[in-house]
């Protein structure tokens, strides 16, 4: 059983985001990038499946600054193969381009299961999971919260709103978009990651030219204007607490 997980680095939303001089993209100069949280869940789910079934786990990621860290961290968690896709990411890339680059790579790797975070907050041209499934002619199930593997089939639990889910059965190979892993992503000690840096190897594959067709062109990016923000209550903690209690009374909930 071969499992391939796709992961990418995206801007950390805790940081302030700024638009660059072109007015059509984020200013990446000071931006802190972190692993897409949902990809982290996809890695966790792959490792859990490995522990249950003895599957092999490969983690594949675009070669953006910080990628070695996320790959070595995955190795420390139990991934056996690490691959980064080297290319010219500076001039812009979208999910259509990445999915096109990954299509022949997947044909080589022959995975039974491809896992990826169901979306990323920077996606503007759809999600990479179903795009890749489309190019590979594989089935896709997204918003997945648990997976069982048996006899060349996967049973995936897909989430709908309001706590409802549905169990779907699908023949392998399949691409699954992970919403949440069955366990919160595990923590690995820095020492284990350092160990992985010494023992694990990161393979490199060339992306070649990116074909962005299929995604929109952005003419303008901006921060939303706030029509009428919150009334800010300040003062000492005592004053604030008193004000809040006053508001609760006024609104009839106290």
């Amino acid at each position, binding site marked *: 059983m071969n499992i391939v997980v796709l992961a990418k680095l995206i*801007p950390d*939303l805790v940081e302030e*985001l700024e638009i660059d001089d072109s007015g059509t993209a984020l200013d990446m100069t000071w931006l802190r990038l972190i692993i897409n949280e949902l990809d982290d*869940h996809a890695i966790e789910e792959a490792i859990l499946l490995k522990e249950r079934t003895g599957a092999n786990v490969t983690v594949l990621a675009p070669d953006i600054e910080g990628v070695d860290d996320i790959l070595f961290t995955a190795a420390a968690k139990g991934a056996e193969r690490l691959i980064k896709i080297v290319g010219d990411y500076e001039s812009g890339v979208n*999910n*259509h381009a990445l*999915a096109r680059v990954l299509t022949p790579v997947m044909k080589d790797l022959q995975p039974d299961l491809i896992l990826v975070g169901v*979306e990323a907050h*920077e996606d*503007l*041209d*759809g*999600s990479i*999971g*179903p*795009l*890749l499934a*489309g190019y590979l002619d594989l*089935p*896709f199930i*997204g918003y997945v919260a648990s997976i069982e593997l048996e006899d060349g089939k996967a*049973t995936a639990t*897909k989430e*709908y*709103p*309001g*706590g*409802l*889910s*549905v*169990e*779907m*059965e*699908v*023949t392998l190979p399949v691409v699954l978009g992970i919403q949440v892993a069955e366990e*919160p992503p595990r923590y690995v000690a820095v020492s284990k990651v350092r160990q992985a840096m010494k023992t694990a190897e990161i393979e490199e594959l060339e992306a070649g030219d990116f074909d962005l067709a*299929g*995604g929109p*062109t952005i003419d*303008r*990016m*901006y*921060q*939303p204007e*706030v029509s009428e*923000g*919150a*009334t*800010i209550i*300040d003062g000492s*903690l*005592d004053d*604030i*607490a008193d004000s*809040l*209690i006053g*508001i609760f009374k006024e*609104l*009839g909930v*106290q």
Partner: protein
Amino acid sequence: MNKDILVVIEHIRGEVADISYMMIAAARQLAETTEGEVLAVLMGSGIENLAGNLAADKVIYLEDPQLANFTSDTYQQSLENLIRENNPRAVVLGHTSIGMEVASLLSAKSDLPLVSSCLSFSGENGSVKFTSQLYGGKILAEGLIPEPIALLTMVPGGYKPEDGQSSTPPLVITAAAPQFADLEISVKQYIEPETGDVDITSEPLLIAVGRGIQLEDNIEIAEELAEAIGGVVCASRPVVDQGWLPTSRLVGKSGYQVKPKVYLTLGISGAPEHTEGIAGSETIIAINTDPAAPIFNIAKYGVVEDIFDLVPVLTEKLEES
């Protein structure tokens, strides 16, 4: 010239999802610019009645037992066919657990451009501009909808469901689904939501905890506050994903839509997936250390303080009074 707008109606177990009406409202506006018609696509089995209040010019109803439950492959194949037959200007789908994957599959298989997370549209000399939401709602992006046919996925917030509803039933054209090929996915069973101890959708006062609460043990400060004031604790997704509170307390896109009198947030940033669940709240009060947190854009009252400093003081005062 392509001018009609196809809208893929989302429904789960006999109920049309609100996003469908919002999409129809958006499609009405798009169709005005393109001078076309709004064609709603309803796919299922024995659900013709769901077409009744859709404010579309026509409803194309694909009736087939294989469409009784959503799977991405049957939806994708049906739509591929309908797009070929109707040659629309745009196909509008929800940015949801149904629409999002169908849109991306279609984009790859039919080689059609896709714009996701659209919040609103506006017409400009015959061409249509999209405004999309990204980076957790912190940034908006604008551009022209690709020609000649575009796939669009929509997030809530730009249109009102009422504007996609009509009291006059639309013309319904029942059609056969295509011959499905190579179906790999089958639906086994639905898993009902956990029935919680409380129903957060009917509580008048909700204390919502987010990732700012940091540790499972800290949930206690929210519980104590809730007890002192007579409210109920609910949460954002990261808190539930950690297993600190059950799914019955989850608010947002994948959780519940709540409509309390007062929604008090403790350490919640206000990501669109969360805020779409709280639009029906009468008054939102936010406590967050980050003055730039998007939650302050929709809250009526805001406090820029550390919850660990403020909440105990608040609880104590409430207990005294």
